[in-house]
């Protein structure tokens, strides 16, 4: 079992959910919270291991996918016009 920890200030929760959905067919994935971290426990399925994919690689790919999605989501949000703060 490989444990991945995502800090809530650095990773988007929706991005992690999306990554979990993408890799769910290849592993048993458990999602939980620990303080400010989202904790994802990955256990590769027997079929995945038979195909030559290690559990570590699968977890690392999930890690990259979640980061990529987080950055994409931030970029999309940055593209919207900024809200100006009006002084009273």
């Amino acid at each position: 079992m490989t444990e991945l920890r995502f800090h809530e200030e650095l990773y988007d929760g929706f991005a992690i959910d999306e990554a979990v959905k993408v890799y769910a067919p290849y592993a048993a994935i458990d999602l939980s919270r620990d303080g400010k971290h989202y904790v994802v426990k990955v256990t590769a399925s027997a079929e995945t291991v038979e195909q030559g994919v290690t559990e570590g690689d699968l977890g690392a790919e999930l890690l990259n996918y979640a980061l990529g999605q987080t950055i994409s989501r931030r970029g999309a949000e940055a593209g919207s016009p900024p809200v100006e703060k009006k002084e009273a």
Partner: protein
Amino acid sequence: MTSGLGDGTATIEVDEGLYPKDAVYGAAYIFIDRCYVHLDRAGEQRIKVTLKPKKPGLDAEALVGEFQNELLGQAWRRQIAEENRAFIESITARALGGAAGPPGLDDLLAMDIGEESAFEDPLGIAMSWEEKYKKKDKPAEGEAAPEAATPAEGEKTP
């Protein structure tokens, strides 16, 4: 704190006061095809970046150096973009305005053109041809006719 990347990793700690979070994300995104990248908090205003090369032959420490250079480049690019934001927005607005083409009939009808707001015409472009080139009155008797009207000596008249 575990990164979940196992052995063969290299880590960097980044101060958010020097490098904004967006610069860290930008640099991480550049490396995502060559490395597995993990971000974590290493304290207040500090981000820990863990890199693990995807190919076994790549040197993790060399990648750290490259990452730091990329980080600096990203931070600098963002600062330049921020300083020139107003200028870039002005150029973009002008380009979009030009791309919209000339005003339509509705726009022209909506324009308020009156006696006071009408444009000046110093070159007489808006004047009619007749008005601009109309014949002048004949000179009064006793006045000499213009020289151009009298043929020169030896010149035949039709």
